[in-house]
């Protein structure tokens, strides 16, 4: 391994190293604040090292990892989201009983897994990253193991994630059997030769899509989502919704673009059906919920459906739209669950609609933050979600996928309905006994303020971010 390869791997190495440091420190001295600070510093260093790694990119490090600008961009996004997670969960777990230090070790492992995922160019690294992420997530979801709901959610996630990993492995095996390679770049070459056994490749791709589908929680692989979202501690839910799904989608984009599997007609049809089903089912089921975390769970199903619409657009507009939307989705979802997090205290999560009644009259700033997050999810101007949705519709229109766009438009109008329901409750008459903690965690409030600022910045001046994304995507297609 050369020096350049080590430099390119620096972000991953720092995250991995931090997890070991935190583990050792916890063995000597347990202190929530110390563990959280160390984790945060490690993640910040990893984020900073992106600028060291950028000059040597793109670089293939071993056959497994491809450190190009695309990977670095997503690594940055994941690490930033993890930093937000640390700040949010510090305030949250400070109010809970028990030891909290292991959570940060799990977080670092999960983050390492996600960064491996977005950099992987080989089935082996894909699987490695995926398992690192999933195994750490089991622990994070069930971290408050004395309570029934997190435990149930953890086991549910364990069973389904293991099953989906099995599907994925089987699919990889079939493709390897037909094509004799596990390298994404090599797959496209062999697919182009067209001398392979279609009846091995297509089922293989179908199984891989199934495995991805579980992780992304798109219909019909979505059944675990609401329960896990509801059961997991609020900051962990935010992490699953953003980092886990985002890394998976980034991988999906890279896999299908660099393997050329995207051009196969049956795959295209499958993704169209999944996208339509996700948009319709996600939005309709969200209408029936009274639990804010479950509403956000179903809405995330719908948002993945929107992403799949852009995913299928031809040309460079599709990946740009997907990446921009993912960034705005990260900011928005982190913000929305961040509000849930800061309003939760040790004994109960602020997940019931009633917990938010009259929030505006009690905590106007927090209500304003939540409102802007929800409006961004609904795609209203001045928020990043608006530009994201605009880009997706533009990507669809450029490929003349009118049916998909019309469904997107109609279902997102349905979506608006349940976002407005939450907003209406927040601005309604306050309830007699206001729930929630009396003071807000300062770190959490800081994150929320930053996320809101980003939301508005990306919504009003998306230009710089777009240049960055185009730059990152230049090597992909």
């Amino acid at each position, binding site marked *: 391994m050369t020096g350049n390869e080590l430099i390119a791997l620096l972000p991953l190495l720092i995250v991995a190293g931090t997890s070991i440091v935190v583990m050792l420190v916890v063995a000597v001295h347990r202190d929530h604040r110390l563990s959280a600070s160390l984790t945060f510093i490690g993640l910040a260093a990893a984020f900073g090292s992106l600028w060291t790694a950028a000059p040597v990119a793109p670089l293939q490090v071993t056959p497994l990892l491809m450190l190009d600008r695309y990977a670095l961009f997503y690594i940055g996004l994941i690490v930033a989201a993890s930093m937000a997670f640390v700040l949010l969960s510090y305030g949250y777990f400070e109010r809970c009983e028990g030891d909290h230090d292991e959570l940060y070790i799990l977080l670092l492992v999960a983050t390492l897994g996600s960064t491996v995922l977005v950099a992987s160019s080989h089935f082996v690294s894909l699987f490695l990253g995926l398992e690192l992420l999933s195994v750490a997530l089991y622990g994070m979801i069930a971290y408050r193991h004395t309570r029934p709901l997190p435990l149930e959610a953890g086991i549910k996630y364990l069973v389904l994630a293991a099953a989906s990993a099995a599907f994925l492995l089987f699919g990889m095996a079939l493709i390897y059997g037909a094509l004799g390679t596990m390298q994404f770049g090599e797959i496209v070459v062999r697919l182009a030769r067209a001398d392979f056994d279609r009846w091995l490749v297509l089922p293989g791709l179908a199984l891989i899509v199934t495995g991805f589908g579980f992780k992304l929680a798109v219909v019909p692989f979505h059944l675990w989502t609401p329960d896990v979202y509801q059961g997991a501690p609020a900051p962990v839910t935010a992490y699953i919704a953003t980092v886990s799904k985002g890394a998976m989608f980034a991988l999906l984009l890279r896999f299908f673009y660099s393997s050329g599997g995207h051009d196969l007609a049956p795959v295209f049809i499958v993704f169209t059906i999944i996208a339509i089903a996700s948009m319709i089912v996600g939005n309709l089921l969200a209408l029936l919920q009274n639990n804010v975390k479950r509403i956000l769970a179903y809405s995330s199903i719908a948002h993945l459906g929107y992403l799949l619409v852009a995913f299928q657009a031809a040309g460079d507009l599709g990946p740009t739209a997907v990446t921009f939307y993912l960034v705005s989705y990260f900011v928005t979802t982190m913000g929305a669950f961040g509000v849930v997090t800061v309003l939760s205290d040790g004994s109960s999560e602020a997940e019931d609609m009633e917990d938010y009644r009259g929030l505006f*009259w009690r905590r*106007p700033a927090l209500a304003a933050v939540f409102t802007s997050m929800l*409006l961004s999810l*609904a795609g*209203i*101007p*001045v928020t990043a979600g*608006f530009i994201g949705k*605009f880009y997706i*519709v*533009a990507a669809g*229109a*450029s490929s003349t996928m*009118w049916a998909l*766009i*019309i469904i997107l*438009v*109609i279902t*997102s*109008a349905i979506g*608006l*309905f349940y976002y*407005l*329901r939450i907003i*209406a409750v927040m*601005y*309604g008459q306050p309830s007699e006994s206001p729930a929630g903690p009396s003071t807000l965690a300062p770190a959490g409030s800081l994150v929320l303020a930053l996320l809101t600022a980003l939301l508005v910045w990306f919504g009003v*001046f*998306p*230009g710089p971010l*777009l*240049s960055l994304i*185009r730059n990152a995507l230049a090597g992909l297609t």
Partner: protein
Amino acid sequence: MILLWLILIPLIAGVLAWMVARWSASAARWVALIAVLIDFVLALSLWIGNFHAGLRTWFEQADWAWIPQFGIRFHLALDGLSLLLLMLTFFLGILSVLASWNEITKAVGFFHLNLLWILAGIAGVFLAVNLFLFYFAWELMLVPMYFLISIWGHENRVYAAVKFFLFTQLSGLLMLIAILALFFLHYHATGVYTFEYEQLLGTAMSPSTEMWIMLGFFVAFAVKLPVVVLHTWLPDAHTEAPTAGSVILAGLLLKTGAYGMLRFVVPLFPHAAHTFAPVAMALGVAGILYGAILAFGQTDLKRLVAYTSVSHLGFVLLGIFAWNELALQGAVMTMICHGISTGALFILVGVLQERIHSREMDRMGGLWSTAPRLSGATLFFALASLGLPGLGDFVGEFLVLLGTYKVSIVLAALATVGVLFATFYALRLVQRAFQGPNTHDWRIVDLVPREGLVVALMIVTLLWLGLYPRPVLDTFQPAMARLEQLASGR
């Protein structure tokens, strides 16, 4: 640059009003009032400054790159049509602030934030000549309006607010698809990414494509206007909104729909608009009759006034799609005068509701004896609404009917029946609420000086528009001539 300030002043003042409201509610009101006054004076000075220069098209512009990757520019431009509607916006803005002076007691700062941001959004709609910017401003108006209705509205406010939001958002998204379709058509034809209105004019497309894209725009504007069938949000929203909300909804938001038809639908898609014109005109006449008949059947005063809006905006639609000089002049005159006369009616009903806590006509009667100034003012605006010669509304509707007569005698005749119906509902309103015996024994305070000032301003303006409309007609004439030329140029 001055155009940017027209939008920025309300935006900044809104935040300022929210902040000063912590200390004093009336400070927030003054901030809002002064901001809108400044905007009004700026618009007025633009009018006076350019009046003798002949008001050529786009006599004031502001243009910056915004999202260069997509050819999106922050491009504002002003012509006579936009200018008049801007002046109407700030005029009604001033009156809305004054009208809510005593009505709003809850969260005063946040109320004025929303009020000012709506005005900024509306000003953006009237000024934008980049389709992306237009869509941005179009959507921007919705959120504060939603809050205005859902927080400060009456009994059934949340339902009405959500309905309003859903209708406009869904139709807005259809327009977004249409905008993007137009954008890519232009891109494939020329290889240039642009959302600029001027450049997209004259994009070549097949008749069926043109029709579909035109319909995308038409639906969005038809919901706002509102065209019958898509109007069901309107009576609820107007009725449940606080007075300022109703004034802005009826006076301004509906006009953005009409403005969109004038500025975008017909010039961008002349052939499709021509093919579609008979349908649109029939819808316009249907709106005139339907609105008038339903207005006649209402007992809730605000609902009654809301349905008269459906009727009057039917004239605007009819005039726009008749597309000749007289009809267009009439349509624009109706837009302006309807904004003032209906706005005034909503203010008066609001005043009445503040006094007797009801909008039901059955609970009123004989109010003239106890509040003569209020009753007289209502009579004046009811007469304006039914199209009494000498008042602005008459000029507008008369010109529309003249223009329509040239195109279709049947539709003109049917629309005239609508004017007749207007007499019924307007006089019934006055009779039931103000004349006859004071059976409920009301003793109410008449218009106080602040309210009197508001009403007097509106009366003077309406008289001026009715007796000497020349300056107004001259102002939008060059702009309309340009639009006509664009629509017939190919």
